[in-house]
């Protein structure tokens, strides 16, 4: 198992990143805000608490991917430590895959801790407010939504690995990843918008735009698939086929991104 040492080193390096302190502080503030906002809601306290908790996990995870994840890849290139790593008996693709597994471990570890905190906040809210305010509340769905958020973050991280395999600076990778995140989250909304009849939205869309959106829909990851926060907040039914296909879609996208990243990285010439 040649991947394991790289995975472990990556994980340790990521966990030691100072940015995590700031991100944790930010998450704690948001969890504090949950209690504050929920008390301002007259009726659906449970729904708003779940909204806040899940959104905090998701947004904080995004910060981890963007500011810890991308740094991990870039540091080796920026500080030229990549030469010492690559002089060892491992291939470049092994290096990429090992690094990626390390990042997956970081995401799972940080999101695990955050999820526990979020659950604690929700338990606290349930204890403070009458059970009537939590009439539609489902731990299973909240945990499922949480797991899908983690899968989405891993996917985004895989895409950032793909970007860092061909860009020369971590800043470009950061920008590309943010753009991908925004496109990925809004793409299905944009697609619905351009496909809806003109009189419903108030403007006409040229066929070219429609085709471009269609193309983008298949190229960019559809991150909105992984967002079932509203369903979790209202304890609505989520079909198992939806979950299964979404997980398959996510895993395939991750495998494709990392494979492509490894291929590009193998061909890359270092300065």
């Amino acid at each position, binding site marked *: 198992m040649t991947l394991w040492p790289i995975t472990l080193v990556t994980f340790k390096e990521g966990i030691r990143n100072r940015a995590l302190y700031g991100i944790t502080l930010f998450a704690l503030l948001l969890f504090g805000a949950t209690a504050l906002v929920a008390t301002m809601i007259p009726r659906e306290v449970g729904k708003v608490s779940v*909204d806040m908790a899940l959104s905090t996990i998701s947004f904080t995870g995004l910060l981890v991917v963007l500011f810890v994840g991308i740094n991990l890849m870039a540091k080796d290139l920026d500080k030229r430590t990549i030469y010492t790593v690559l002089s060892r008996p491992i291939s470049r693709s092994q290096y990429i895959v090992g690094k990626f597994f390390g990042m997956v471990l970081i995401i799972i570890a940080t999101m695990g801790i955050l999820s526990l905190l979020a659950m604690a906040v929700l338990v606290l809210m349930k204890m403070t407010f009458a059970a009537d305010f939590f009439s539609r509340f489902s731990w299973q769905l909240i945990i499922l939504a949480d797991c899908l958020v983690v899968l989405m973050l891993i996917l985004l991280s895989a895409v950032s690995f793909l970007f860092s395999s061909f860009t020369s600076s971590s800043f470009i990778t950061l920008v590309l990843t943010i753009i991908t995140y925004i496109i990925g989250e809004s793409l299905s909304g944009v697609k619905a918008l351009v496909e809806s009849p003109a009189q419903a939205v108030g403007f006409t869309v040229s066929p070219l735009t429609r085709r471009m959106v269609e193309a983008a829909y298949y190229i960019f990851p559809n991150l909105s698939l992984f967002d079932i926060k509203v369903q979790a907040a209202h304890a609505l039914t989520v079909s198992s086929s939806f979950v299964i296909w979404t997980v398959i879609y996510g895993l395939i996208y991750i495998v494709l991104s990392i494979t492509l990243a490894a291929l590009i990285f193998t061909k890359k010439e270092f300065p």
Partner: protein
Amino acid sequence: MRRLLIVAALILAVCLHAMALGKAADAMKLLPKDESQAFVLPSPLLKIAALEFHGIASDILFLKSTVFIGSAVGRKEKAGIKEWEWNWYAKILDASTDLDPYFLDPYLYANAFLPWEPGKVEEANRLLEKGSRYRDWDWRMPFFVGFNDFFFLHKDAEAAPFFMEASRRPGGDPMLASIAARIAFKENRTETAIFFLEETVRMTDDQSLKELYETRIQALQSIALLERGVGLYKKKFGRFPSTVDDLVRRNIINQIPVDPYGGTYSVALDGKVRSTTSSELEPHISPLMRSLH
């Protein structure tokens, strides 16, 4: 000495900072506010801009609307809440429920305000029908639509199916089904309206909304009492009383009920009872009176 000077300057700066913040905030309140600021992004765009945070965006829009209603209802100015402000209120609640169509609170607030003071019954019902579609387990949504159809719009035939739907959903009062039949025969409008409002109070947890509805019930009950008295008077003397005081003088009722909105009652030529507060003085009662007569 120099250190002292720096400290003094810092203290001065902090004081100036607090003063500037206060002055600027006060001045900002005085800036003209008009319709151009009552803009709510169209829902398809909001959905895209909210990325994966639809739930929270919906909560924030709802909180914005409650801040408005909280400050506006207590407003002392004579003009009260302006038309465009109500339009904005309807729009922001609509946007909030487009982002999260299962969110209960915006529907409850839409129903508590829109059909009453501003008379925006259609807007309220459009929202509530959306709520009824999504919250298909919630009997309140069709109940509200039915009530608004019956009470404000006098569309009894259209209201009945909504009451039937409400009686079928879990938690819905089975009585609603027979009420639906009763309104089809146009019996006892005022009493039926009181029953509906009492049903609304029963399901309302929010204290301020509860009080709002209870005042409306009280106003309706006073009118129902006087109308019964006028009916008895007509039976006894063959004509309508000219004032409500006639009812007391002839021992038909013990005393004139108090109008919770502070008006006095008069009897119209056709025997209908009106309150002076049904004019522009008090916006609460006018739609109520409009709908009764």
